[in-house]
């Protein structure tokens, strides 16, 4: 049953050293504020899971919080490299990073299988692709009716998943709108889950009976963190800061400038700092 609490409490209670941690949000609704809190609480030895590591995991990797990462596309979208990720893989700085690499299709199916409490996912995938040669977690399964061979990957079952969403009600039911990515699956596949939200309201009022809702009994903690997805965005609340994504390239390219940025913006920061990004405006406003 969802507990409505502070971000500090939610991370304290639900994220443990060594955990397999999934922080999802497909470009949209990335839970940056929660990522910063994990850095402040100095969690270590995390095994990170995320389709697109994005800046949020570049930050966790750069501070040395991660022992490994499972992912499917590790770039700065539309900009270029994730320099902290590259530095970890190419130069083992600040520590080696074990990687388990998949395709998007495989990751999406693996989350889906996790939510459905299946041990593995199958897909028509990886045909002729070299990933199957370097990742022992890509196997195959044979259709018992047709004999066709399909790719198989293990279901993703995180210890804890964290997502950001538009709003919750005071019971802890959550509404997600727009590009919903694999967020619902990430929460349902996990043992524990945290949802940070832009607003907590009296009535959830989904716009349609078929809206994407997570009920309170599928969530461990709900936290009010307006602006908590910045520099990602919240559909209906604020737009993606493409300018910040572009600026990150320079910040993260250099170890010292990265470390200075973390010190000034994360270690010396707090969840409330994100609120200034939560100015309500059309999500497509420039």
């Amino acid at each position, binding site marked *: 049953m969802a507990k409505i609490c502070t971000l500090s409490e939610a991370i304290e209670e639900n994220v443990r050293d060594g955990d397999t941690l999934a922080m999802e949000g497909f470009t949209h609704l990335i839970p940056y504020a929660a990522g910063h809190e994990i850095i402040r609480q100095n969690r270590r030895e995390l095994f990170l899971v995320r389709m697109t590591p994005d800046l949020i995991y570049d930050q966790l990797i750069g501070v040395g919080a991660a022992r490994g990462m499972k992912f499917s596309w590790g770039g700065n979208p539309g900009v270029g490299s994730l320099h902290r990720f590259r530095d970890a893989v190419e130069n083992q700085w600040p520590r080696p990073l074990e990687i388990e690499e998949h395709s998007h299709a495989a990751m999406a199916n693996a989350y889906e299988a996790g939510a459905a409490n299946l041990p593995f996912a199958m897909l028509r995938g990886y045909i002729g692709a070299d990933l199957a040669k370097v990742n022992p977690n890509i196997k195959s399964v044979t259709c018992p009716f047709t004999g066709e061979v399909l790719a198989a990957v293990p279901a993703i079952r995180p210890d804890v998943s964290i997502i950001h969403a538009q709003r919750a009600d005071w019971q802890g039911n959550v509404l997600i709108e727009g590009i919903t990515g694999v967020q619902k699956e990430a929460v349902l596949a996990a043992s524990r889950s945290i949802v940070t939200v832009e607003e907590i309201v009296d009535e959830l009022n989904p716009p349609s009976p078929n809206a994407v809702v997570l009920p309170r009994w599928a969530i461990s903690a709900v936290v009010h963190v307006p602006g908590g997805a910045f520099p990602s965005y919240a*559909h209906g609340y604020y737009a993606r800061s*493409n300018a910040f994504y572009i600026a990150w390239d320079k910040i993260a390219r250099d170890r010292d400038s990265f470390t200075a940025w973390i010190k000034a913006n994360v270690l010396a920061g707090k969840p409330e700092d994100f609120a200034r990004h939560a100015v309500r405006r059309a999500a497509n406003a420039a």
Partner: protein
Amino acid sequence: MTQDFTPTEMMTIAAARALTNDDVCFVGIGAPSAACNVARLTHAPDITLIYESGTIGTKPDVLPLSIGDGELCDTALFTVSVPEMFRYWLQGGRITTGFLGGAQIDRFANLNTTVVGPYDKPKVRLPGGGGAPEIASNCGQIFITMALTNRGFVDHLDFITSMGHGEGGDHRARLGMKTKGPTRVITDLCIFEPDPVTRELTVVSLHKGVTREQIKENCGWPVRFATETVETPVPTETELSVLRDINARTKRAHEAA
């Protein structure tokens, strides 16, 4: 009456022309996104554009920086979850055309966006495949856009991120794939198509003012030309102005936020 244009503009416009009104197109970021939207804003207004973030039938006014920009959802007919996108729509066989780019390509249109050097000890760690491995196998056909350079068009790939025609010939069919694979590679200097039998990429069209020598110099393998090559029609004024307008709107939007 034609204006001057850059090789990149020619590439984007040539790619746009390859699309039709009936296409359901899985769009990658960068050059593919520009090409698909130029097609939509010129000769193919009813084309369906799909981005892997789950947005279906999207009509962005500015090009997205990421495949999940808000603009894509705001202008979409509808938006589905990412598992649904990859299961029902891509794997489901509903996509006629996939548009890919890459860091490296070989003569059989296999692509590498994963690593330069050994996988376990990479010289350069690239972003990885994302949707590409299954886009390459599940879309009806694949178009590829990349600038023609020696670094990109290489004799040997360190890593096959997504399979094109594999080792050539009937390799796709032997692996059970029923889709066509790459049918066109559109560069800033020329257009390649796979040879009908060997599936080796072959230059079929040279952009205006480009020489065979230039193409040979910029391609990392001994490039073949079709028996008959043509000159790519230059961009029309409409094509150019549509492309430049959307690029200008995009630049303003991305720098502002």
